[in-house]
């Protein structure tokens, strides 16, 4: 694999049951091309958390994924309410998710901390009332095991 493989997904915001379809597809594609299994796991978890966040908080959005031999770049963009306090949102256990989402097993305030944990770099661009763009990178070969 020498070229960059690019994929675009729409994450529907009105159907919680479909959250994760994009992550599942990316995972499947990475497996098919024989990517490093540990990197695949990290990509799958980070992107899945991002997808869940988009569905819970932002009414869905779009995902763009670039797969290169040495890294996977993911960009998740939504036009939701934005994040008022990113520092607070990054704190384990802090959550603004409604009770109905918690009843489904999410919204424990682990999404963004978890994304940070499983990615080699992450960046959040957010503006209240405009939306959020989440940039994530997972390297194919990480220097230190997590």
């Amino acid at each position, binding site marked *: 694999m020498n070229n960059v493989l690019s994929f675009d997904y729409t994450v529907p915001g009105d159907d*919680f*049951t479909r959250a994760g379809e994009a*992550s*599942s597809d990316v*995972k499947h594609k990475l497996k098919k091309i024989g990517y490093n299994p540990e990197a695949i796991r990290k990509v799958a*978890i980070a992107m899945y958390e991002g997808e869940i966040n988009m569905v819970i908080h932002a009414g869905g959005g779009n995902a763009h994924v670039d797969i290169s031999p040495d890294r996977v770049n993911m960009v998740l963009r939504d036009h939701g309410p934005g994040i008022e306090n990113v520092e607070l949102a990054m704190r384990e256990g802090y959550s603004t998710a409604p009770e109905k989402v918690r009843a489904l*097993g*999410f919204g424990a305030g682990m999404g963004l901390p*978890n994304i940070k944990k499983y990615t080699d770099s992450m960046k959040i661009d957010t503006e209240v009332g405009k939306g959020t763009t989440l940039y994530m990178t997972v390297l194919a070969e990480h220097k230190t095991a997590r």
Partner: protein
Amino acid sequence: MTVKDVIRILDAEVVSEGDLGAEVKTACGSDMMSDVLAFVKDQSVLLTGLTNPQVVRTAEMMDMRCIIFVRGKDPGADVIALAKQKDMTVLKTNHRMFTACGLLYTNGLSGGTFSR
């Protein structure tokens, strides 16, 4: 142990059949999928009382082979369909979470690695 052993130990019903001969060594029990994604590593069995399709998605992302619904909970058709699509074994047991975990643990399944 294998998934077949898990079925015997928990007196479980097979809701969706994947590879019943698959070896499983570790498990985790949780109703909070966020925690499963955050703290679990290398576990192959998920015990839960939640029955929405995101349980299957979570298990898929974590490379788990088998989902066990405790407290006699019945997963919906959408859950079963997704599990079949992912070739994942889904079981149902009448044991409560604590008892189901205890039975598997005393029979040799461990909690595996805690990823922090």
